[in-house]
């Protein structure tokens, strides 16, 4: 499919690019300070001065959303990187070599998957304590099985195909067979797994911060902002709306992009 006919790719791409720019800018500069309180300006509805309004401390919500989206985004990316890298490693070895280790590791993965992720993350956080790094680690570990599973299936399917047999005959080294010959063949399932994983990670971080075990104030994350906003749903609905909208846009953008990539790479 030509790129200009790929509506998913175009909308997803534009949206993700826009959000990425906002997030990257937010790392260095925000219209207002994200922590400075201003009693005179608290709970203001959206206006030309504050396009998303202000919160109960008079902080500019757009600035807070910029920072919060950045926090959520970075955490989600790191979670996916950890989960994906470890998942590829485990999945490839299990799928390619099989055997007892494969059976045991996959059952461990199933056990982890059977538990609600948030609950397990809660357990890990209650042991290690909060903070961004611990959240990343806890969620990263919990995300390994979903990647290991899909990668393993692809490796097990490719292992006995003729092109892998002939690579072995040629004397191609096993690591090269694993990561130069088979890995590119897993991309059609890996790319959706990465985007779904990214979305789940954004939601998981938001849920944990919402429950108060994630990012701690004064640092903003979309989850912790949603938690704060629920107290003011009646008096300042824009607080929850603006923050919630940011979560939705973030997830929507990358889902659309992934769908577009899948459609574009589909074989005729």
């Amino acid at each position, binding site marked *: 499919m030509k790129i200009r006919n790929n509506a998913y790719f175009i909308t997803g791409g534009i949206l993700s690019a826009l959000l990425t720019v906002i997030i990257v800018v937010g790392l260095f500069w925000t219209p207002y300070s994200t922590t400075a309180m201003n009693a005179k300006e608290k709970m203001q509805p959206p206006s030309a001065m504050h396009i998303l309004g202000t919160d109960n401390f008079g902080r500019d919500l757009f600035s807070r959303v910029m920072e919060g989206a950045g926090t959520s985004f970075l955490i989600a990316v790191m979670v996916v990187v950890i989960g994906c890298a470890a998942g590829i490693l485990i999945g490839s070895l299990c799928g390619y070599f099989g*055997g007892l280790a494969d059976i045991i590791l996959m059952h461990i993965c199933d056990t982890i998957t059977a538990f609600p992720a948030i609950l397990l993350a809660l357990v890990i956080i209650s042991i290690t304590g909060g903070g961004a790094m611990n959240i990343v680690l806890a969620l990263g570990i919990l995300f390994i099985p979903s990647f290991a599973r899909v990668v393993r299936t692809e490796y097990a399917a490719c292992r006995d*195909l*003729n*092109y892998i*047999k*002939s*690579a*072995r*005959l*040629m*004397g*191609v*080294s096993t690591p090269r067979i694993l990561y130069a*010959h088979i890995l*590119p*063949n897993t*991309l059609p399932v890996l790319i959706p797994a990465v985007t779904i994983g990214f979305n789940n990670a954004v939601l998981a971080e938001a849920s944990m911060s919402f429950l108060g075990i994630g990012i701690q104030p004064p640092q903003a994350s979309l989850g912790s902002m949603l938690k704060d906003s629920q107290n003011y749903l009646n008096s300042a609905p824009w607080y929850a709306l603006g923050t919630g909208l940011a979560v939705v846009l973030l997830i929507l953008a990358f889902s659309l992009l992934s769908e577009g990539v899948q459609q574009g790479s589909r*074989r005729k």
Partner: protein
Amino acid sequence: MKRLIIMNDLILEVRHLNSFYEEDLTDFSHDDRQQVLRDVSFEIRQGDILGLVGESGSGKTTLARVILGIVKDYNGDVVNHTRLPQMVFQDPFSSLNPARTIGWILEEPLRALEKRAAGEVRRGTADKEEYDWIPRTKAERREAVREMLYAVGLDDEYLERRPWELSGGQRQRVSIASAVITRPRFIIADEPVSALDVTIQAQILELLVELKEKYALSYLFISHDLNVIYQICNRVLVMKQGEIVEQGEVEQVYRHPQHPYTKALLKAAL
């Protein structure tokens, strides 16, 4: 000490070969270890196209796998007098990596060979001169690939294409190219034309003969199709339930079959 190299035209010797099914680790019933190959003996000489014919399940592919060292559960002698025998598979749709371009697929055997050759030279099991021809830079490899593509009747246009953009016959040409590009002396072709329609079959057979002359190859040509064997082979082995029931010159075997099974096969084919 210089290694003693016995120069003769023997490519492969197989003596009293017996092979068994690989055991399934999860199956605890040890009672039937089935024998796949029974006392198989034959040899291949330089320039031979040795046909191996027999019905499905007669052990043809197992024999190929034993020769290549994939199946290790056997007794008897398999003496391979050549380095790096290659294999061409039946199904041209699974023998090329769908995620890679044709150019990459054909360069990969050269990259693997370069590494392997370095190891052999270091260990002293091969002379450096033997591998002098291996292209070592990206540009040299590309040139070798281009040359090989032309040799199998394709051209540079295919370098950036992916396997799924090619027809069955074109794919089989690429598979053959990837086997021949490492300059083997011996190639096992396992039903290389069985998945192709008749006109393409003839072209591929012609190509195999052409390459044999050009690169001094010998083949073990596995097929269940007696007509194909007749067209291309000079000698033939007839296999039944893991046993070679008849072998000899193709003309001889086809005109005066001795074994009842060969007679039945020929009758069915004509």
